């Protein structure tokens, strides 16, 4: 079930650099949301920018609140960052399939890069109940959310490109190092396409099942515009918004 819902902004604040956290009060969307799903946000009431902006659900809180993390990269996210507490914005959601969390007693690696770390948090919270989770979080310079991951993960490995915190380098390297010592049954990954491709390669080589969350330019977010269609390895066409955004990594063509 998907909803169009006007939600009250309960918090909207800068976390680090250009990354913001927003907490929204929802009565419908929140009830149906799952880890890995996303919402479509209309950032203002005008025609410019016209389209909603897709943002992943970071956390589903008990008090009917949805938390999102977003990076200011352009016009839409800039407007979003200026919305004040108690303002109302329109959401459509929950959208997409979400991660497959129907798993038990597995050794799971959760790997995120940049803003792609955000959607993995609710997932980690969820699967940590019945599985062992190690989180690999890659940042450029400033880290965020690592504390929260700590709570639900056996281990949290942090990398930064600049070396400001944790391992200096890419999170994929960090993960490969860990793979030498630890066996994983399943990978969940979200982040830049190059990172996902790398992880997908590693997963294949190491014979680990792997789910990746993709991004695509979207107009609707609920399957109507066909703007987000991608061709899969088997030649079929899938919609990132409804068939995804989470796919098994071996289904995804990374070199289009």
């Amino acid at each position: 079930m998907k909803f169009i819902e006007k939600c009250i902004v309960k918090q909207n604040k800068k976390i680090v650099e250009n990354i913001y956290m927003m907490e929204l009060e929802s009565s419908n969307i929140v009830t149906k949301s799952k880890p890995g799903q996303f919402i479509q946000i209309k950032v203002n009431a005008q025609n410019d920018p016209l389209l909603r902006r897709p943002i992943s659900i970071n956390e589903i809180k008990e008090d009917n609140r949805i938390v999102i993390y977003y990076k200011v990269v352009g016009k839409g996210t800039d407007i979003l960052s200026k919305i004040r507490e108690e303002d109302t914005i329109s959401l459509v959601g929950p959208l997409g399939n979400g991660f497959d969390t129907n798993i038990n007693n597995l050794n799971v690696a959760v790997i995120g890069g940049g803003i792609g770390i955000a959607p993995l948090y609710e997932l980690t919270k969820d699967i940590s109940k019945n599985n062992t989770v190690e989180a690999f979080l890659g940042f450029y310079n400033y880290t965020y959310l690592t504390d929260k991951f700590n709570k639900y993960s056996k281990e949290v490995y942090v990398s930064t490109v600049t070396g400001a915190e944790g391992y200096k380098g890419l999170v994929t390297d960090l993960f490969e190092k860990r793979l030498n010592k630890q066996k994983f049954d399943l990978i969940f990954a979200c982040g830049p396409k190059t990172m996902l491709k790398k992880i997908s390669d590693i997963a294949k080589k190491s014979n680990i099942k792997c789910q990746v969350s993709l991004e695509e330019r979207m107009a609707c977010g609920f399957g109507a515009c066909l703007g987000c269609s991608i061709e899969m390895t088997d030649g079929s066409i899938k919609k990132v918004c409804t068939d995804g955004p989470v796919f098994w990594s071996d289904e995804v063509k990374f070199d289009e």
Partner: protein
Amino acid sequence: MNRKADLSLKIGKLYLDNPIMTGSGTFGFGREYEDFIDISKLGAVVVKGLTLEPRKGNKRPRIAETPSGMLNSIGLENPGVKHFIQEELPYLKKKGVKVIANIAGNTIEEYCKMAKILNKTECDAIEMNISCPNVKKGGVAFGTDKDIVYKITSEVRKCYDKTLIVKLSPNVTNIKEIAINAEKGGADSISLINTLLGMAIDINTRRPKLKNNVGGLSGPAIKPIALRMVWQVSQVVNIPIIGMGGITSLEDIIEFMLAGANAVAIGTGNFINPAITIELIEELESYLINNEINSINELVGKIRTY
């Protein structure tokens, strides 16, 4: 308030309960909107553009946002007309909604083939897309040449008994002569406008924002052009007009009706508010009641030009 307003209308042989339809390619096959609205309340559902064979469409990126508008180059991704008839049409008809099949072909023969196939189904009408700018053959060429418009309309007319709508391309010098020839060719109705051919460039990669280089512009940005064309066409044809292009509000609908549209279609607006069609039907009804207008006929073409 117990008053009622008459929203119904007839297009060719087709009776519609209200004049609000969906823009082809923006409403899928209706299912996508199930969670948001009761699609049976729509005037009609115009489905995604169909081709004889299934098509995978264009490569991504297919979408780019522009000021108050968007570009798309979907390239007619669709499961083909047969799949539509088998898998999608029954669902829609079970809902009790009027269904209009939007069709596109590479040749006149293809259009006729599809029309013949659809003629034998429960599908209520055909909207001939002779204007889609994304497909190299059969796209712009058909809809921008008045002689071809006459030819293709009259050929399809021969193979199709039900309501035949011809959808016009706005990328033309003279929309009137195109509309006149569609009417002469036997169209029951004219719908307009399809998207305007546009482009956007990513200055960092120096590449077009669409893999197809160019795409169709839709949304509020194009409304003034759409409205002008509806008005122009309404002056030269006697068949019903379905107006579209950037409609997102009741005011937009009234504008189109005053300009001469008997019905309207909502396209891009659905992406932003998936319940917009139903909301607008309700708003239109209230508007008529509140303004003591008994029927939409009292609006259509009632612009008082200077």
